[in-house]
């Protein structure tokens, strides 16, 4: 096995390299089935990060990982499952997307989330679980092993146009971040 290349911070100047037109609209806002996933990325003092980058990757409503090209050049019709957005001055991010279906019958649906920021030396992985299916959440292999106050950080709440998922990098309500072991 070869040792992986180390990560480094995305730095403050990623916008012109990584942002692109339509990056946060996996589907056109307001289109049939579109929901909003939004939230804030917050530091240990509770302040929003104005220079964070959030990416999401998710199954479609059928529960299957999309295998479609076109994330960088959206055509408004193809669901690619990938989105990216830089946070605004108050640390807010917004995606327009579809609800992911369960990948197995009865499993809890979630959106995989990656966070990058100036001041954050390597990316962080987490999951934004949808709150609607309580039985599925109770049976989830990750959530069921977490105490209630930690588990709460991984479950999006219902918002006006969809779901709200805040990401707290540090502190008492720090989001549970994930490691997939092989790295």
């Amino acid at each position, binding site marked *: 096995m070869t040792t992986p290349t180390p990560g480094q911070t995305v730095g*403050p*100047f990623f916008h012109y*390299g990584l942002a692109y037109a339509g990056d946060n609209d996996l589907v056109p806002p307001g289109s049939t089935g579109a929901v909003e996933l939004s939230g804030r990325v917050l530091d240990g003092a509770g302040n929003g990060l104005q*220079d964070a980058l959030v990416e999401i990757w998710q199954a479609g409503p059928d529960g299957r990982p999309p*295998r479609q090209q076109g994330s960088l050049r959206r055509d408004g019709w193809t669901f690619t499952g990938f989105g990216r957005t830089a946070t605004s001055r108050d640390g807010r991010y917004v995606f327009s997307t579809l609800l992911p279906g369960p990948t197995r019958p009865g499993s809890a649906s979630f959106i995989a989330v990656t966070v990058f920021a100036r001041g954050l*030396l390597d*990316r962080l992985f987490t999951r934004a679980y949808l709150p609607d299916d309580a039985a599925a959440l109770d049976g989830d292999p990750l959530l069921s092993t977490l105490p209630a106050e930690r588990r709460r950080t991984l479950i999006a709440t219902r918002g006006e146009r969809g779901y709200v998922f805040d990401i707290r990098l540090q502190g008492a309500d720090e989001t549970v971040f994930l490691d997939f072991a092989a790295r």
Partner: protein
Amino acid sequence: MSSSPAPALGLEPQSAISAEIVAIEADSQHAGAEENQPRLDYPPYRSSRLRHPHRAPRTVDPETIELWAPCFGARDVDPLDADLTIGHAGEPIGERIIVAGRITDSAGRPVRGQLVEIWQANAAGRYVHLRDQHPAPLDPNFTGAGRCLTDGDGQYRFQTIKPGPYPWRNHRNAWRPAHIHFSLFGTEFSQRLVTQMYFPGDPLFRLDPIFQSITDAKARERLVAAYDHDLTSHEWATGYRWDIVLGGGRRTPLNTEETP
């Protein structure tokens, strides 16, 4: 714009940062554990103080979606996007370079047809970014962002301009070693990597808290490209080779072309 150095009121000296860097590396060596990734809690990088988790990450078995990565292709990337020296009225100023290498997973298997994105400062150390206030010249013929897809062997290749070092306000007289930012995807979500490629022999390495946040010297070397005379082309550009290993990637190669 000013024609003289900026004041550094209230900023700590390099010596204070360097002393912390040296002490942390000594502790790390003493502990003896192999550290192949940057520390998220690395006080010499002042901006990390409120931005690193206090808790260790939770280890999980990846679920279906995490065993796959987004699919990019010819529809997303124009082959011309890999040449950062074109697309403007004239030639950019600076040292024209080729940066190329191979992307593999931990088992040495090539990462095929996947997206590579880069961004960087120009030859004077200035980014095309509103928040970059360094009073070095912008180059009207250089933006500094590019993309490509890896080929069937995992190879990527960019033509660009060698970036300059630039100052930042971590401490007094803080300078980043010249680098190119890289964003990479593997065949699985967990392989996602954003990092920086450096140039060999940079005298700023030992002074830079971002580079030094990787406390193991061998691991830091993995971010440094090698000058490659075979990549250098006659009367045109010098060449740097930088191979990248994306951790994870436990699916077998037979599965990579399967539909989920």
